[in-house]
């Protein structure tokens, strides 16, 4: 046997080690940019695009998000603020589109998602921190100003009559903004990216030789994930009672209000919805949270191309039959 033949096996083994090692080397990193926008922390992550292009794409995504924020945040000076102040008027194409989506989801969910909850949000004022909950009388008074079916939108003329209600788009505008950011990234040539607005995600493509890995937050243990998944391209949006809440006399008061009772919804700890678009996932995650696990899962199963996972108030985890298909669990 020649010297070369004798060393063929060890040499082949060395080659294999080098090949595996190079494949596993951390090497390229995604480009990540983080900013505070839309009253939350927004991170845009792009993979596999040369740095200047990735940075440019991220800038376009942030510009798209900022544009939505400047128009639809319920803070003084924005067009939405002016619309609420005036009780109606002509709106931009973007605002008309989000209002149309919001009213459509309000209709489809029987009012479990309702964009006219602004008076209730103001009354409960969860971000202010621990304080006594409002009186039943005050809740009833605020509830009398809530009702999506009083809003009249003419999509052609882009005119709105709020019918003496006030609109808050917090349950849907973030999703709409995420979709616009994803569009901007694609238009800039990026195909592998994550848009993460406060834990509401749009996931596209892969991270190199593996899929993107997303941890779904455990609603009662900040240090645990309920599940780690590799979602299909689309949106993964979570609503939970642990995101903005305070405790008063042993009870948790959180920011997801039931438009039918005027009080924090009590049926779930968290709801995660996968949908092709973030605007739909956003509205649906809120609606399912409000409806509770039984009715909420029925609603999800009635929506084509949408799946979800629900953690009920007692901690029981339930999901639609197709959730594991659109968001398969990752073990590594």
């Amino acid at each position, binding site marked *: 046997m020649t010297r070369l033949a004798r060393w063929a096996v*060890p040499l082949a083994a060395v080659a294999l080690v080098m090949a595996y090692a190079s494949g596993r080397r951390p090497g390229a990193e995604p480009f990540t940019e983080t900013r505070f926008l839309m009253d939350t922390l927004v991170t845009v992550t792009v993979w596999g695009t040369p740095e200047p292009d990735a940075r440019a794409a991220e800038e376009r995504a942030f510009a798209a998000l900022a544009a939505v924020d400047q128009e639809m945040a319920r803070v003084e000076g924005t067009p939405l603020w002016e619309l609420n102040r005036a009780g109606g008027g002509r709106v931009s194409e973007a605002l008309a589109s989000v209002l149309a989506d919001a009213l459509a989801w309000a209709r489809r969910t029987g009012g479990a998602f309702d964009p006219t909850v602004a008076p209730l949000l103001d009354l409960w004022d969860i971000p202010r921190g621990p304080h006594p909950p409002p009186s039943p009388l005050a809740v009833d008074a605020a509830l009398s100003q809530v009702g999506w079916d009083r809003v009249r939108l003419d999509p052609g003329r882009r005119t709105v009559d709020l019918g003496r209600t006030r609109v808050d788009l917090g349950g849907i505008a973030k999703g709409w903004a995420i979709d616009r950011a994803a569009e901007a990234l694609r238009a800039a040539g990026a195909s592998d990216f994550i848009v993460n607005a406060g834990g509401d995600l749009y996931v596209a493509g892969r991270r190199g030789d593996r899929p993107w890995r997303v941890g779904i937050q455990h609603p009662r243990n900040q240090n645990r994930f309920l599940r780690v998944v590799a979602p299909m391209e689309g949106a993964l949006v979570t609503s939970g009672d642990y995101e903005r809440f305070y405790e008063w006399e042993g009870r948790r008061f959180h920011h997801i209000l039931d438009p039918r009772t005027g009080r924090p919804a009590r049926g779930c700890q968290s709801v995660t919805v996968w949908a092709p678009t973030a605007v739909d996932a956003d509205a649906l995650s809120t609606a399912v949270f409000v409806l509770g696990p039984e009715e909420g899962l029925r609603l999800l199963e009635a929506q084509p191309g949408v799946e979800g996972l629900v953690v009920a108030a007692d901690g029981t985890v339930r999901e639609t039959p197709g959730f594991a298909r659109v968001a398969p669990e990752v073990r590594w």
Partner: protein
Amino acid sequence: MVSRRAFTPWDALVVAALLGLNLIAWAPGRPGRPTGYRITSQAGSRTVPPGSGRIEVPGPLGTTVIEVGKRSAWIVEGPCPLRLCVRTGALARPGRVAVCLPNRVALEALGPEGEVDAVGR
């Protein structure tokens, strides 16, 4: 002079060692400890190494205090009413985030191969 034996015990040892290395290289990786922490505020982002100690970050409501240890980092104190950032506790794995929204301060654990690429919450 070249040995006439085709495959000696030493060759077998070398092959076994290399195959062992292959297995290690092939085995699925486990997430490691953070290699740094990104602190984002209204002033922008900066990255600090593990063990940086106490860091005070100004925000619109006041000062958020962060402790960056060798193995984890956490928000110690903040001026926010809900104090959810403090409740988040220690970030010991890459990909974990603690955020104080009212004071516009975020702490993220960084690493080359995080447990996850994003957290849905």
